[in-house]
Every structure is written in C-alpha cells, then in structure tokens.
C-alpha cells in the first residue's frame, strides 16, 4: 500500500505541474441556459469548468435521458468527500448482489478521477436505496420508476432513491451518478453535486431497445457487454439479440450440436452456454433484458445443412445456392423447409434450449421477415408438397402461415404454456388485409420497420389490436448510409423520430437496429453510439422539444459513453462542444 501511495503522490505532483504550467484561460458562466465562455477570471458568477457550469445551468441538470416527472432543485454546488461515501440498502432481502455489482460499476467513474485533492471543505455522502420489491426478474411489465432526492443538511449530503423494483433503483443510481461530477478548480480535484435535487422519473415506453446482429459478423462477449454498459447509461432496457442469420449460427445448442458445427464461422466464434449465462447476468445487472431472436423461416441457412445426413431430410433449402440473386436478397441464401415435419421437432429442441438457458421474459422474437418466394418455388420438394395448388404468391404465403403456426406450436410445447408473446417483423403476412389470417393479435407483437412515410401501417395494426414495436427504418436503421442508396441518419434525425403521432397503449416502444453486415468488434461502437443514446431519450422521455434544444446535454452524454470505454463517434468540433451557442446558425 505504501509503495502505491508514493506512486500516487508522484502522479499528483506531475498533474500539479501541468496545471501550473497552463493557466486556465477560460471560465464559464450561466446565461439563459447556456454556459458561456468567459475570459474574465474575476467574475463572481464564474464556474471553473464547463462540466460544473452545465450541472447547474443545463436543462435537466444535464441528465440524459431527461426525467419525465416532477423535478426540483437548488443551484448550489456542494463538494463530496470522496473518502466518505456510504451506501445503505433498505428493503427486502436478496438484492445485495444486484446492488453491490451496480455500486462497483458506478464507482469506476469516480475512480477515474483519482487521485483526489480536495482543498476546500467537503461533506460525506450517504446514499440510501429503498426498493419495495426484491424481484430479480426483468420483463415488459417491470416497474422502472424511481424517485431521487439529494439533500444537503447538517454537513451531510444524503441521496435517497426510492423505487418499486431494483431496476428502478438502478435507474436512480444512473441519474445520481450523472449528477456527481468532477470538481476541478486550479489545483483542486474533487467531486461535487447539487445541494438539492428532487426527481421523479419513469419511462414513457416500456420497450426501449437496441438490436445487435451476430449472424452476419460475430461480436465478442466483451463487445456486447460494452453495449450493455452504453444501454444502461442511456436507460435502454432491451437488447434485441438477432443471434443467427443465413450467414452463421453462433449459438451453442447442447441438444443440437450440429447447429454450431455447421453454422459457426469457427470454433472460436461460438456463444457457449457459459458465455450466455455470463452475458445474461451482466445484462440483468445493467437493467437490460435480452430478447433473443432466432430468425425463421427466412434468414436461416448456415447451421441447418445437417438434416439429410442425420436422416431428417432437408431442414432448410437453397442453402448457399448460386447465383444467389435468384434465390435470396442477400448472400448466402437459405430458408427453412416448411414441408419437412422433422423441422418442427428440431425447432422444438431449439426452443427448449431457449427455455433452459434464457430467462422467461414472456417475449421471444421469431423474426419472420423477408421470405423469398422464388427459393421455395424452385424447390421440387416444396412444389410436390403443394401438389394441386396453384403456385401463386397466396399459396406460398399460406405455406409461410402454416410454418408460423407449427413453429408456434413447437414453441408452446417446449415451454409447456402458451403465454409467451411472439415478436415478428412486418412482412407480407403482417399486411393488415391478411394478418388476421396468419397471426393472432393475442400472441403476436409486430415490429414495424417501414419508413416514416408508411406510418399508416402502424395505425392499421393498432386498429386490429396488435401490439407494436417501432423501428422506423429511415431513422433508426443504424447500418444505413454505407451501402446501396441508403442515407446515414445523424443523431438529430434519430432523436427527432417521432415515434407516432399520439401515444397509444398498443405501442410498446421502439428499437434502433444495428444490422451487422459492415460492422464487427472493430468498428461497431462508433456506428451505434452515441446515436442509440439519442433514441433512448425519445423512448424514455418522448420530448416535444427539438434535438437542437437537447444538443449540449447530448454532447455530455456522448462524453459519458466515451468515459465508459465506448468508442462513440464525435459529433462536432470540440470547440463547438466547449463554446455553447457559438456554432448555431444565424439567419
């Protein structure tokens, strides 16, 4: 310990030297909600850093996403004694691990600021956490609301977080730690918060998601965890994990070892059962539920080649067939074979695996998009099965409907109940004219990925009493802008995606989608972040205000993400981040 202390001292001396060698040339003062650069060091209303000024001055005290309930505060800054932070947990037993893990997570932020050198008076911080329930289970109906109160009195700062669930407590901690920031002034380096804050907060939408695709390119467990950190920081609560696609099947399925044997890119590109367990726990601790998707009957190819050899017939057809343009919309081709009855028992095994290795959150994503009829229509086995029927689109849609019905039955047999809500993408069979024929509105949730101009579809589906999840493709598809004629949507466009013209209880929420063709561990961070955080505020708060109004708060959120180790993209020259109001356009 001693040697470490001496190292720390020398580091501190170095830091002091750099501070002295560079005179602070700018101060900041609060004017009309902006932190304005001020060169006059003697101005009494100065704050020594932009961050401190923004804590006081910025809308919602710089909290991202903006709280939706009552908010009250005083604009005085109090310094916290970093050596005297106590955490008290009041509540039913069984929440210790969850809370301790989160405290450790948030403490990383404070450790970054070390070593501290608080020269002015500092006060102890007492954090009191009071969850009502100890339910560790996260699902669509988890109550995520919380209240946070910070009070400074009797030379002590007390932060109380009350929530129904531990996930609400976690959100409260997230907000609290956004309000605890470094206090740097001259050679002082400390931490501080506001002397009084009251926030009551809860999300507008229950389903606030990010889709990651590990079928096109594999993502390491570390990368997925990094995204979970970013999601937690932005209060997103659903990781929609598009695990498999026609390119690869990286999910280890104990009952069906051939899935990865034939489907993984290599033995290293597999999510083992232990990796999944680790990820699921990590996600839960970050307040994120994982919504797994095994896309079917289309977007399935590699991983399904072994049927014939195992005596089960062709489980899928058109796999890797060339020329691919004749059999699918993206190489490699592949579509499940709905006419092979063995397929459904394999599916049941697959779903049983999901039951055993993923928590039952009451939701499962079956994909169900982009069936390419020419594939089925060129497969003799399928044509034979349809004997007598005209080979029209309708016939094939019926076949698709038949697949969906049998897949659902396999799922229900695996789960031994019929309570799971099944999510499917909008497709030919979710068209309002036909959807009732194929999908019941009690069992199915429809994820819409139509462009904004096609918002009528959502109205129609709501009229038919389907629940929907919105992923407006010309705003929330994060892969756009790098292929074909698609355009990149910058954070303002993402932010201003009006979810829908009015709040309807059938709208569960939305998701931004990161399709994986052109990203892998090396570049995914900057594609997703900070844009996913812009969507997060849309989904948590659904504000009426513009992106312009949110921008400096958003810049602060981008910095938080970078501090978490996420390679979030830069949004503007740093000069514009530091000079609030200076880069706006004058007309």
């Amino acid at each position, binding site marked *: 310990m001693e040697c470490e202390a001496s190292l720390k001292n020398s580091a501190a001396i170095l830091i002091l030297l750099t501070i002295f060698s560079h005179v602070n040339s700018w101060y900041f003062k609060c004017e009309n909600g902006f932190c304005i650069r001020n060169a006059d060091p003697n101005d009494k209303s100065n704050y020594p850093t932009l961050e401190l000024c923004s804590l006081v001055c910025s809308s919602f005290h710089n909290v991202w996403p903006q709280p939706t309930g009552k908010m009250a505060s005083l604009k005085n800054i109090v310094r916290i004694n*970093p050596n*005297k932070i106590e955490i008290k947990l009041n509540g039913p037993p069984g929440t210790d691990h969850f809370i301790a893990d989160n405290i450790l997570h948030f403490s990383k932020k404070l450790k970054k600021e070390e070593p501290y050198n608080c020269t002015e008076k500092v006060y102890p911080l007492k954090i009191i956490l009071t969850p009502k329930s100890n339910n560790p289970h996260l699902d669509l109906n988890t109550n995520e609301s919380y209240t946070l109160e910070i009070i400074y009195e009797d030379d002590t700062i007390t932060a109380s977080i009350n929530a129904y669930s531990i996930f609400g407590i976690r959100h409260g901690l997230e907000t609290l730690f956004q309000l605890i920031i470094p206090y740097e002034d001259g050679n002082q380096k400390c931490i501080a918060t506001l002397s009084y804050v009251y926030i009551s907060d809860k999300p507008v939408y229950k389903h606030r998601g990010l889709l990651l695709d590990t079928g096109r*390119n594999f993502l390491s467990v570390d990368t997925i965890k990094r995204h979970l950190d970013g999601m937690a920081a932005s209060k997103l609560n659903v990781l929609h994990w598009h695990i498999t696609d026609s390119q690869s099947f990286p999910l280890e399925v104990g009952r069906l070892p051939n899935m990865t044997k034939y489907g993984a890119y290599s033995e*290293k590109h597999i999510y083992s059962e232990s990796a999944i367990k680790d990820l699921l726990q990590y996600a839960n601790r970050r307040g994120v539920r994982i919504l797994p998707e095994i896309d079917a009957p289309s977007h399935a190819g590699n991983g399904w080649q072994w049927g014939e050899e195992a005596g089960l017939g062709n489980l899928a057809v058109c796999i890797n067939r060339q020329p691919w343009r004749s059999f699918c919309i993206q190489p490699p081709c592949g579509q499940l074979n709905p006419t092979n009855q063995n397929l459904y028992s394999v599916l049941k095994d697959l779903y049983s695996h999901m039951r055993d290795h993923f928590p039952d959150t009451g939701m499962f994503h079956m994909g169900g998009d982009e069936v390419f009829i020419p594939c089925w229509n060129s497969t003799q086995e399928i044509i034979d099965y349809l004997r007598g029927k005209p080979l029209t689109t309708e016939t094939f849609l019926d076949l698709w409907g038949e697949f969906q019905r049998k897949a659902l039955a396999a799922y229900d047999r695996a789960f031994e109940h019929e309570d799971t809500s099944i999510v499917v993408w909008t497709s030919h069979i979710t068209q309002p004219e036909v959807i009732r024929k194929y999908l019941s509105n009690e069992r199915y949730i429809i994820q819409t990925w139509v462009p904004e101009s096609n918002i009528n579809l959502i109205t129609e589906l709501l009229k038919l009493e389907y629940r929907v999840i919105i992923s407006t493709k010309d705003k929330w598809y994060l892969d756009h802008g790098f292929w074909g004629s698609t355009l990149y949507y910058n954070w303002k466009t993402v932010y201003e995606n009006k979810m829908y013209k009015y709040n309807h209880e059938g709208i569960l929420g939305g998701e931004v989608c990161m399709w994986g063709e052109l990203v892998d561990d090396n570049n995914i961070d900057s594609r997703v972040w900070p844009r996913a955080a812009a969507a997060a505020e849309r989904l948590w708060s659904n504000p009426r205000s513009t992106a312009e109004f949110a921008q400096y708060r958003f810049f602060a959120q981008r910095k938080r993400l970078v501090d978490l180790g996420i390679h979030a993209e*830069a949004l503007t020259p740093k000069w514009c981040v530091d000079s609030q109001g200076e880069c706006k*356009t004058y007309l």
Partner: protein
Amino acid sequence: MFLYVVWNVSRDVMIVSDLLPSSIRRERMKQGDLRRALMVVTLLCAVLFLYLYWQQTSRQEPTLIFNYEHAFLPNYKKPQPPQWTWECVNQRCERRHVTTSHQSKLQSLATCGMLCGSMQLWPQPTGPVTLGSRAVSFNHLQMELMHGVAGPAKAMLEQAYRAFNDSVVSLVQRAEYVKDHPDVKKFIVKVTVNHPEIVRLKLDTSEGYNVVVKAYNDEIVANVTAKTFFGARHGLETLSQLIWWDEYAPGGGSLRVLKGATVQDAPAFPYRGLMVDTSRNFMSIETLKRVLVAMAASKLNVFHWHITDSQSFPLVVPGYPEFSRTGSYSPDMTYSPEEVRGLVEFARLRGIRVLLEVDTPAHAGNGWTWGPKAGLGELAVCVNEKPWNIYCGEPPCGQLNPDNPAVYTVLENLYKYLLDLSGEREIFHIGGDEVNLECWAQHLQKNVVANNYTDLHDLWGDFTLKAISRLQQANGGTKIPHVIVWSSKLSQRPYISKYLDKSNVVVQSWGASQWTDTPDLIADGYRVILSHVDAWYLDCGFGRWRETGEAACDPYRPWQTVYSHRPWQQFHLPKNQIMGGEVCLWSEQVDESSLDARLWPRAAAFAERVWTDPQLDLATFNIHEDVYTRLNTHRDRLVARGIGAEALWPQWCSQNPGMCL
C-alpha cells in the same frame, strides 16, 4: 434487512470488490483485517520492486523484439477441433465442412488463400510476380536480418526490420508455438541497398524493390534488393505479406511463408498521401502512430498533418508559447516539439514523410489572439466572430490580418520551426484555402492598405506571395521546390497566373471531380495533387453537424468508390502533371474514438490506386473478385496490427471467396 457499507473511493476498489463474490459483509472491516491486508500488499510491493530492479539490471536489449498485443477471442471452454476446411477449386478457395475423411489434410482459409492462385499482396505490385504454391512453417525467433548496409541507412534499416518483425509477430495467435518443430531452422532476411546514403524521401527517390524468397535445405532466404532504404522498406512490407498465420498447422497453429517467390515492384505515383486534421478534434500521438503503421502497411508515403485550424492550435511552438497556450483545447491536448519530432522519425522509418500544415491566411483563429498583449497588434481578425456564417464557412471564424507586418515575421519564424521539426525541405504545404473576403472587408475597411485594393483577391494574392517569400527566408534563402496550396478562388483564372508561380507551386485540387478546376490547372501548366471531394474525402457522409454551409459533401463513399476513382483516365488528364493523390480526413465529426474506422480500409483501397493504378473498366466500373479477396486479407492484416478497421462484409463472404459478388 439493512446493509451498511463503507465505501472508500480513494483507497482501493478491493474493499468494494471484496463484497461481491458470495455475500455482502454487513459490518465494517475490523481494524486487524485492514492491517493484515496492508502488510500483505506491502510485501507484494517489495517483491515487485525487487523483480523490477532485477529486470532492469539484467535485461539486455533484445535483438528481436517480441512485443505483440493481440486480442484473443475469449475462451469460455476448451477449443474444439476445426469445423471447416478449404479446398482450392479453379483458383478459388471453397469452404467444406470437415468430415472424418478430411482429418489428415485440413487446410485453413489463410493457407488456402495464399496457395490458391490469387496473390494476397496489397497494393498489387506493378512488376512481374511469381509465387510458389508451397509453404513452410517457421517461427519468428528464427528470423535474422543480414545486410551489408553501411552508413546512415544502417540504423534506419535495422529499425525498419524491427517494424517488419513486429508486423510478423502481430499475426501470432499462440505464443507457445515457438516450442514446436517448424519445417525450417532459419529464416534469413538479406537486404541490399545500393545507395545507403539516401535517408530522406524525395519525389525522385526510387521506391522500387525486388524480393526473392528461396528455400535451401532447412533455410529460407528472402533477398530484398533496392536502390534506396525506402525501396527496401517496401520490400520488407511485401515480404511480411508473404507470411501468414496458419491456424491449422500441427500443434495448434504456426507462421508460414511461401517457399518460393519473386516480386518486382515500383509505385505509379511518387506522392501517395493521407491527410488527418487534428484541429477540429484532437488526436493523440498514439492514435497518429496507428495511422502511420497502417499507411506503411499500404505503402502510402506522405502523412499530411493538418495540425491547426481556426478551432484550435495544438502545436507547441517554443518561440511563441502563446499559440498553444491560448489555442489548444486543453494542456494535455497539445503536441510538444519532442512528440512531433518523434512522430516524424517514426514515419521516416516507415518510408513516410510528414508535411506539417499550419493553414493560413484563413482557417486560423484560436491560437492567434495574443498579438495585442505581446505588442504585435492584431495578428488575426474576425476570430470567433458572430454571426459566423457571414465571415467564414464553419464556426469559429478567424483569418490572419494581412495588414499587420508583424504577421509575416511571426509566420517566418513559425515556418522556420516547422521546417526544423519535420526536416522536410522539398515540399511545404501553406494551406491557403477558403479565404472569406467579407471578413477582411469588414475589419480592414478603415485601413489605408485595404482601400488600395478594389478587388480583395489581390490582397489575398499579395499575402500568399509574401508568405511564400517568408518561407524561402525561413529556409535560409533557398526556395522550397514544391509549395502546395489548396485549390481556391486564388488558384483559378485570372488570379492564378498572377500569384502562383507554376514552377514552384503545386495545387492540391479538392473540388468535385466534375468541376473544371483540375483540367484548368493542368491546361495552365500547373502540377496537381488530387483529393477530389466526391471520392477521396473520407469524412463525408455523416450528415451535417452545422445547419448551413456549402461544403456538405455527403454521401459516404464506400471503398469501391475510393478505389474506382481514376480521374486521369476518366477525364483524360496527362499523368506527368499529376504528382499523385491524397485522401483527406477532416475531423469535425471524428476524433480518436472512430478515426481508425473512418480511414481504414478505405485509405488502403486508395493506396492501391496510387501505387498500382490498375486499369478501370469505364463501362461497368466492375471491381474484380480478386480485389475484394485481397483487400479483405489486407484488412485482416491491419486489424492484426491493432487498427480498428471497418468490416467489408459478413464474415461468411470472407470464408466463401467470390460467393457474395
């Protein structure tokens, strides 16, 4: 239920993490516990110190450096046998599922790719290439440099060899493989340089080289022959591309090299540049080194460092400390002279010259405001002026004050410093673009000099003439042979002939390729460097970060567009006036978080355009399958060297060459 934890942030996370494993402790740590823990830690520290002390006295400088950081995929369980093997069918690697009949002759994708007809070299050599179809295994400890190079190039060559060695080591995925028994006992790299006295890259420096790899009994000998160090370095780069990691080699993987190869190569263009802007957003030296590593891997040879702009001035200038003191974003967002010199040397060893651009008279604001305090008068005008859209193209505004004679003195000293830092005296970039005449008109109107100009372009022209003459003085009275300016109004008719001397000035033409800029410049006899915004600006495509501004350069250009841009063919321009090309990355919407992915592999696609300059099919713009395969291999190489390059496609397409086109 009540939990009470004392959490001491400044002491150690140990206290908190102690809580985690099984149960949370419900009380304070006992005093004795803490003392015991401290004792243990102190002891550990002592042992560590002893170890470090011993290390520093007994460790010799190794002749070969084994220092690689490789991101191993996390292993959650013990490795399984490989599931895929690749077979070469009609010069294409086909993926096959492993069956029992395969077991003895599994072939990894990397090995198949190297041995199956298509070469995996990037950029493709311009001379004849023959590659063997067999390979031998070796390990990097067997590699040895032999050379008879004396004189100044000797030390450089040895350093370049280390960089080469690092590249080879970056491929290694299993450190224990050195204990296996490879096919050969020695891997000798013989380098011959005919002109070891040439240690500075010039436009006419020969960068060509020959590589011959041969196997003798249990030795591999690679002969790299070149006229200059710079050619030899490229030869080593090519040699590193004949080496790969075969993950299916017996024992769990090994390095392999082709058993025979000859490569003859020389670049198509002498100027193959890449520009990074460190003013809009700061990039650390570490990040810039990554850029240089990837440039060297792709045989790019000019790092154009747009080091300052109106937003910030991160360069520390000892003669004028106020530049960075008032102009940098923060004290740690600066480049000290030692750091810049270090980077210049790092680049030179990789065959890259560094051009330091301090853009003037426009694109200069923050960092230039200290004149009045220093008794020099206003060095810049309109700095941070509002509304910015009247006085400049993007906020914040700022332009040097052409009326103030002190400006030219400061410039001369600054130029002297830049010449000294970079050691570069053949090419100099003075910036010179996007002057906003309204700024000068508003701020200089009361001044006699300003009134002498009816057309302020002439004021701009005179500034440029003065700047160039000050540059000559800074260079000890000797003309810099090639002074680069960005294309602008001044580089157009009628001003160009009046102010820019075609024997001395080179124009970096950045307008859209359809504009008349480039053909006009060529017709008027100027030499150009091409950086067309619609192909070679790598920052485009991320939407507008400010609401107005004409320079919206969307959309994003994928690597295919970068690669297929061949303006001399498309617009019938004579190649002899084209010094080369440069890809540019302006940093308004990028900082070091995403720099790698913005640059790579697109800049590598560009590199083949200017090194190899392959023919373009103007009818279809079709890119051959071989280009996809080779670029993908090169991208993997960059990733192994620590570059966060973008993915080209789903990995399935890498594993099934030709099947995604």
